[in-house]
C-alpha cells in the first residue's frame, strides 16, 4: 500500500460537464417547474404522516434527488432524507417514487409527468420524513452470516485462497448487492409476513454458498431453510425487477429452494444421508 499513489479527488473547480448541469449551474439546459408531493412525518409532533407539496424549478436533466436537494436548500430545510454518492453506488437514497421503489439519484425527472409523489421505502417503519428504520434488514443480514466461512482455516504463510475465473463467475452477480433495500420495499411477501428473511439477505447467503472458498452453507441453511427463509418466497419476482444493481434475487431464491429440497431428501429419505 505504501508505494501506491495517493488517491486524488477531481478538482472541485472544474467538475465534469454532466456534473455541472447536475449542480444546477447554467449550462444552456431547459428549466422545468416540477411539483413534488412528499410524505412528511415528524416523530416529535405528528401521529400520522401527511403529504406536502413543493413547486421546484428544476433543470430538465436532473434526477429526483437533485429536486429534493433544491427543496432542502431553497424552500424547506426541515425536509429529511438519506443520500450520499449521487451515482447509484451507495444505496442510501432509496424511496418510493410514484409507488415504485427507486434510487432517487437514478430516477430522471424527464421520465415523469405531472405531480411526482415521493414516499419513504414501503414495508419499513418511517423514522422521519423519507428516512426509514433499516434495523430489521440489518438484523436479518447478520443472521445469514454474509461473509466467508472457510472450510479449513489456514495460516497466512500458506498463502491466499485461490479461485478460478469460472468459480468467481458462479457467484459474482449476487455479490453486486448495494444493500439499498429496494427489493424489500418491492416484495409483497415481506410486507405480508415481516418475519420473512427477505430477498437481499437470502441472496447474500446464496452468494457465499456459491463461493468455492466458502464452507459455511450448513450454518446459513439453519436460517435460509426455515419457514422464515426461502419458503416464504412465492416467486413474485418484483425484487429482481426493481434491483438497481441487476442482482436478480428471485433467481437466487428459486435455486435455494431447489438445493434446500435436495438437502431435505438426502436428510430424510436416504438412510444415513447427511446434507
Amino acid at each position, binding site marked *: 500500500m505504501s508505494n501506491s499513489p495517493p488517491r486524488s479527488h477531481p478538482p472541485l473547480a472544474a467538475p465534469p460537464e454532466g456534473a455541472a448541469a447536475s449542480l444546477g449551474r447554467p449550462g444552456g439546459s431547459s428549466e422545468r417547474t416540477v411539483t413534488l408531493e412528499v410524505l412528511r412525518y415528524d416523530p416529535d409532533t405528528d401521529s400520522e404522516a401527511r403529504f406536502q407539496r413543493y413547486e421546484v424549478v428544476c433543470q430538465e436533466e436532473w434526477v429526483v434527488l437533485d429536486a429534493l436537494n433544491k427543496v432542502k436548500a431553497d424552500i424547506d430545510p426541515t425536509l429529511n432524507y438519506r443520500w450520499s454518492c449521487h451515482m447509484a453506488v451507495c444505496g442510501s437514497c432509496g424511496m418510493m417514487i410514484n409507488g415504485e421503489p427507486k434510487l432517487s439519484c437514478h430516477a430522471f425527472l424527464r421520465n415523469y409527468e405531472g405531480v411526482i409523489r415521493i414516499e419513504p421505502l414501503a414495508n419499513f417503519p418511517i423514522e422521519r420524513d423519507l428516512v426509514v428504520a433499516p434495523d430489521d434488514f440489518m438484523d436479518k443480514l447478520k443472521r445469514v452470516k454474509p461473509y466467508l466461512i472457510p472450510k479449513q482455516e489456514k495460516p497466512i504463510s500458506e498463502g491466499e485462497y485461490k479461485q478460478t475465473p469460472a468459480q468467481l463467475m458462479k457467484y459474482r452477480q449476487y455479490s453486486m448487492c448495494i444493500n439499498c433495500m429496494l427489493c424489500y420495499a418491492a416484495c409483497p411477501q415481506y410486507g405480508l409476513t415481516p418475519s420473512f428473511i427477505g430477498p437481499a439477505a437470502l441472496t447474500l447467503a446464496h452468494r457465499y454458498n456459491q463461493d468455492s472458498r466458502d464452507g459455511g452453507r450448513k450454518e446459513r441453511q*439453519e*436460517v435460509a431453510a426455515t*419457514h422464515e*427463509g426461502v*419458503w416464504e418466497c412465492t416467486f413474485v419476482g418484483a425484487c429482481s425487477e426493481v434491483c438497481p444493481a441487476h442482482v436478480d434475487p428471485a433467481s437466487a431464491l428459486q435455486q435455494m429452494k431447489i438445493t*434446500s*429440497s435436495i438437502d*431435505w*431428501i438426502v436428510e430424510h429419505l436416504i438412510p444415513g444421508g447427511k446434507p
Partner: protein
Amino acid sequence: MAKSHKPVVWFPFAAGGTVIAFFIPVIVLLTLMAALGHAPAGLDYANLHAFAANGLGKLIIFGVVSLSMWSSAHRLRCTFYDFGVRADTAVATILYLAAIIGSILAAIYLLRI
C-alpha cells in the same frame, strides 16, 4: 427455528407445475375439440380405453392428473394467503386432502380399467 419440511409439499408442486405446463394445454385442446364436435380419434372409447389399460398408460395418466392436482392445490394455498386468508393450516389441510382424495380416486378408476 427448525428447518422447514416445506420440500415435502414444494417438490411435488414444482414437478406438477412442469407437468401442467407441458401436458395440460394440449389435453384441454383435445377435450375442447371433442366439445366442439370434432372429437379426435384418441378420445374414442376403444382407443383411450386401450391406452389406459396399458401399465405405462395408467402411470402416465395418473402422474399427469395427480401432480397437476397437487400443484394447483399448493399454489391455491399460497393464493388464499395472498388474498388475506390467514387460516393457513386449515386451508392447507383442506386443499392437500382434496388433492390426495382426487389422486386416490384417479388410481381406483384407473385400476378398474
